[in-house]
């Protein structure tokens, strides 16, 4: 057996490439939902809504303080239990077995990225001078209008690099999702590697692929940043 069979690595590259959409799907869905939910949580914290504020603090601390792998397992095995309990209490039909592992994975990654994004959004909203909001009020805008038209466009510029970091973190985080039976880049690489004991080649393929994806993301974020900055 040769040390590193480059031909094998190149031959199997398309197979690994086919798994890219799954990786991107998980990252995009988690990013999108996480951004919306994170925004709501950030508002809870900024406006110090009595109970929700406390709960958000605990939630964020918990998510940031436990490994993603553990969160995946907790949700993958915990959600069916919750559904079963709900079924017993209310009689609602909850077919836990019919839900695909991907759905649990999406929930887990969303829950994870929500916590990180809520902190990013909170800090970027706070970075906008309070005078901006007061000026919006003075023009007769409501809080929602002021946020949407005045504060958020400015906050977005500040938050963008951090969003990029979260997204790249998510892409790399998806390499763990094979633990709950979802097949993405890492899983395909592992399966092919296991067939012929060609671990080095396949992990090489996977790492190159991740690298390319992250590099493209970085570039895209940089271009976006430039565009947003040009407006002002």
């Amino acid at each position, binding site marked *: 057996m040769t040390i590193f069979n480059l031909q094998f690595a190149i031959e199997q590259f398309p197979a690994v490439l086919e798994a890219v959409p799954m990786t991107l799907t998980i990252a995009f869905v988690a990013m999108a939902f996480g951004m919306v939910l994170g925004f709501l949580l950030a508002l809870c914290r900024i406006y110090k809504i009595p109970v929700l504020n406390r709960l958000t603090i605990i939630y964020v601390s918990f998510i940031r303080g436990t490994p993603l792998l553990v969160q995946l397992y907790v949700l993958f095995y*915990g959600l069916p239990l919750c559904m079963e309990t709900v079924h017993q209490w209310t009689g609602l039909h909850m077919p836990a077995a019919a839900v695909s592992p991907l759905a649990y994975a999406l929930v887990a990654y969303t829950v994870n990225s929500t916590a990180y994004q809520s902190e990013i959004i909170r800090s970027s909203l706070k970075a906008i001078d309070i005078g901006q909001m007061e000026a919006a009020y003075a023009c007769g805008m409501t809080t929602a209008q002021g946020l949407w038209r005045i504060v958020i466009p400015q906050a977005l510029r500040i938050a963008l690099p951090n969003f990029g970091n979260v997204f790249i973190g998510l892409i790399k985080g998806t390499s763990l999702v094979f633990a709950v039976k979802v097949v993405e880049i890492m899983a395909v690489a592992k399966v092919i590697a296991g067939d012929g004991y060609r*671990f080095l080649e396949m992990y090489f393929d996977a790492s190159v692929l991740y*690298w390319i994806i992250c590099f493209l993301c970085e570039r895209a974020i940089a271009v976006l940043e430039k565009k947003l900055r040009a407006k002002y």
Partner: protein
Amino acid sequence: MEALEIENWVKLIAQITAKVPLTLVVTGISLFFGLWLGLVIAMVRLGQNAILRAMATFVISFVRCTPVLVQLFLVFYGLPQVLLVFHIDINDWDALVFALLTFSLHIAAFLSEMIRSSFLAVGKDQFDAAYSIGMSYLQAMRRIILPQMAVHALPNFGNNAITLLKETSVAFTIGVVDMMGQARIYLGNNYGMNMFEIYILISLFYWLICIAIERSIGRMEKVFCKER
């Protein structure tokens, strides 16, 4: 599904607690080596040599852009094969060594960026001032620059330490029995019973350690900032 007996809980908690030192040691040692290696990488990136600088940028980009799981496998499966070419046989080394190696290299890239940014934040005039009163480069570094860098870098360092602590949970995939590994072994022995409760328990362990790290970093920040 049956609930776990109380004595089983106690046993499990004792087993996992016994593995807390290992997780802490892996995190600590990786941070230690990562810090020194990161310092070297940061100095190279700030230095004059263009070739070395390009290499350092390349390495940092690779490490930051690939999952730690991939890096772990590359080191665990790849390194012995590569070294075999030079007739160095490290196949019988403990998995822990490979884990430490991977985590050190991994965190070094992140720490080097932290060091670089805090070095730039201190500013060149501090160096000039140190030179003007006759200090050498090393003296200026140790007495003037590094203490100020520490203030800038500390919150960032805390984040990196917490991230690393959580990332050590993937070490079980190459056979290092840490907290996570102990839980997985317990589950394996009990046919996956009470998975949910056990993972909640293990997440509490990680959470507590993280809070402890956060607190101690916060205290250190206070100490460092008081000197200013």
